[in-house]
């Protein structure tokens, strides 16, 4: 008994040592990885909402060509696994770009992991966001949009002042889901060697053989991120629902 307790205590001590911020601890690496993950998730989510807003308005009000193109986009992107898309962009597209550059006598370029990550996950998020926002816009009472048109509001202002704020309360639960997916999809970038949280964790665990310690720590960081964003989205949703009576019972 005494021996196990001793080993346990020694284990706990070394665990905290390993997670310390300064070497020999790997805590700083993990936090740097977390920061990179958040950067990619924010970039991808922002890009996704941008694409999704344009996509949703395009699907609802665009001409037949625009609608067909958007249908192809949302269908293909939502069908292919994110991992495959990441590998396609990171290796296949980089290769194609470099072949082209070489053919014209330029030097090869190296695509930054951060930019590639944001681009790929943003395109994926955009496809899902298009559908979330399209549904949310369709749920806006048509009469309120008509009232704005009847008062001579130009289309851009109408979208910004009426349609978008009204659809936000419908869209936020779906967008909160997308954000959580974005934070976790950043882990897929570990396969192309980008130093986000999962990749940093793998390195730390591999170097110290303390797999349990580091992957538990990484899990905790993802959990904290998700709880924090859950709180933020709940506040946003309360704000977006202003003026709507609450449902009871």
């Amino acid at each position: 008994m005494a021996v196990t307790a001793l080993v346990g205590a020694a284990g706990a001590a070394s665990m905290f040592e390993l997670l310390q911020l300064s070497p020999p601890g790997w805590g700083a690496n993990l936090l740097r990885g977390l920061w990179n993950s958040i950067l990619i998730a924010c970039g991808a989510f922002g890009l996704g909402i941008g694409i999704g807003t344009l996509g949703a308005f395009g699907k609802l009000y665009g001409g037949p060509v625009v609608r067909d193109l958007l249908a192809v986009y949302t269908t293909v992107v939502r069908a292919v696994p994110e991992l495959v898309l990441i590998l396609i962009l990171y290796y296949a597209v980089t290769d194609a770009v470099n072949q082209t550059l070489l053919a014209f006598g330029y030097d090869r370029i190296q695509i930054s992991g951060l930019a590639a990550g944001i681009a790929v996950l943003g395109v994926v998020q955009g496809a899902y966001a298009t559908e979330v926002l399209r549904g949310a816009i369709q749920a806006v009472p048509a009469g309120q949009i008509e009232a704005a048109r009847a008062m001579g509001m130009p289309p851009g202002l109408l979208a910004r002042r009426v349609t978008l704020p009204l659809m936000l309360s419908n869209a936020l639960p779906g967008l909160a889901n997308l954000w959580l997916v974005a934070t976790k999809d950043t882990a897929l970038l570990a396969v192309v060697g980008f130093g986000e949280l999962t990749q940093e964790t793998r390195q730390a665990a591999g170097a110290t053989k303390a797999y349990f310690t580091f992957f538990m720590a990484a899990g905790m960081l993802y959990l904290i991120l998700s709880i924090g964003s859950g709180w933020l989205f709940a506040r946003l949703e309360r704000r977006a629902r202003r003026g709507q009576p609450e449902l009871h019972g």
Partner: protein
Amino acid sequence: MTRPDGDVPQPEAIRIEGLHKSFGQLEVLKGVSLTACEGDVVAVIGGSGSGKSTMLRCINFLETPSAGKIVIGNETVAMRPDGSPADRKQIERLRQSLGMVFQQFNLWSHRTILENLIEVPVHVLGVPRAEAVARAERLLARVGLSAKADTYPAFLSGGQQQRAAIARALCMEPRAMLFDEPTSALDPELVGEVLAVIRDLAAEGRTMILVTHEMKFAREVASHVVFLHNGLIEEEGPPEQLFGAPRSERLQQFLKSVA
């Protein structure tokens, strides 16, 4: 109600000429012509499906006419051969001069009553905020809703919402008002408070076209009554004549059915 200035002809506010509107195969308006001069209160009555709401909605192009001509003031709306508006800016400008009141109120649910009133004056017409707020507060006092300025629409009764919607339309200082069955969605005991506001507007000589099912009210406030049947004007004239001595058999039947 007769025009306060008797026989002096007033300038035209709204003129519709040969208005046609089809939804697919269904022809809802089959050539309607109508003129409202400044200060006129034109009541449009008719059975459901007679085209009266569609006619009203064509005036500010919420519905695109299939053919015909619409003149607001002395400005003819530019239309393509298929009836669609040729100049979006012109439509927007003309819409700003026509205050529309809907059956379902259509207040913006994410803005308070005061914000609803100043939204278009401030963000579209460029009225300074303080001025728009002062104007809005005056109008809210007039429709008896001063206490509700900071309330969201969902917390008001239907009658209060409709009075707020009328105030919102007035806040743009429109040349004319278009009412699309403003009391049809209201509980019977709330109809009176909305009619009182509209009566008040008619009394101050405001130009309006009013699509309504309230026959007594139409008879009381209108200077001119139009009876639409199957997309055509079946009979029109001063209210005493239309309600007192209807000539067409259909109007007689209609008045009997709503009495």
